[in-house]
């Protein structure tokens, strides 16, 4: 899937599951209509793991978020894992799950057993999905027009300043 399609899809999901425009993203609206999906916040002991999406036939899909990470990181991880759920169900079913390493959200390291290119592709898609789901373009532009401040925007969307600056750059609002 090309990244522009990923963004478009994520923006559609953001409008559908977050019609009241609240932060952090109301994942309960997703689980309410997707009975095969459950979300768990767990204090994982592996400090390099930020989250995972598991699959088995009985339970369906389970998103696990490492609750030891900062809240902003947890929000992004959850959105990233939802990206896997919406975009990569075939891979999740085939592999029984995907585990995302801490640095994975920055795209540098891979904790996954697919080949590197395939892993990079799906992680990139999940990251772009997460960015659009948490920070829809229209809302970011609106916030940027008023604040003109990366930290304030990040606080509004409850994401890290790094995630916000990447999104602002992507949208061409900052250099």
């Amino acid at each position, binding site marked *: 899937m090309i990244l522009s399609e990923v963004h478009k899809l994520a923006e559609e999901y953001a409008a559908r599951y977050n019609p*009241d*425009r*609240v*932060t*952090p993203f*109301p*994942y*309960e609206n997703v*689980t309410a209509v997707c009975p095969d999906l*459950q*979300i*768990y*916040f*767990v*204090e*994982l*002991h*592996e*400090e*390099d*793991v930020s989250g*995972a999406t*598991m699959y*088995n036939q009985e*339970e369906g899909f*389970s998103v*696990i*978020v490492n609750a030891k990470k900062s*809240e902003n990181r947890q929000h992004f991880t959850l959105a990233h894992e939802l990206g896997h759920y919406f975009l990569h169900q075939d891979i999740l079913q085939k592999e*029984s*799950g995907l*585990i995302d*390493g801490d*640095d994975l959200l920055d795209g540098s*390291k*891979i*904790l*996954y*057993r697919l080949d590197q290119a395939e892993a990079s592709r799906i992680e990139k898609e999940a990251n772009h999905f997460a960015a659009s789901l948490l920070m829809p373009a229209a*809302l970011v532009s*609106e*916030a940027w027009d*008023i*604040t003109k401040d990366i930290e*304030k925007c990040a606080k*509004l*969307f409850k994401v890290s300043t790094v995630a916000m600056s990447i999104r602002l750059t992507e949208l061409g609002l900052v250099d």
Partner: protein
Amino acid sequence: MATTPNKKIALGSRATYGRLLKAYSKIPTAQEPARPTTPRQSFDEELERERRHLQNADLAQDIKLKKKTLNLLFWFLGLETVAIFTFALLQATHWLGFSMEEWSFKLLISATIAQITAMLFVAVSYLFPKAKN
């Protein structure tokens, strides 16, 4: 539920990955799914609050600048008034041989009073601008 307490894992290791996959697959049976605990905040309300905050900050900065400018202006006008009174006193007493042509003195006094009045008018208009419709 977790496999290795607080341990850095070998990223990319197939064995580690398999072990974690097995461990994490037990989580759904071991605990209840999450319910939202973080309060949801309206983006629009937060943005409106931020907008008002910025407007207030702008206003506060504006008032601070005006206050500073007006303080300087009042000091300047005060000193000018003192100077003109001194001139008037010197002209009246001819102290230290001070003497100005009558017309020069009148011109100086009139011009200074006009200038002080004009500056006060400008300052007050700037401080209390007429509300726009």
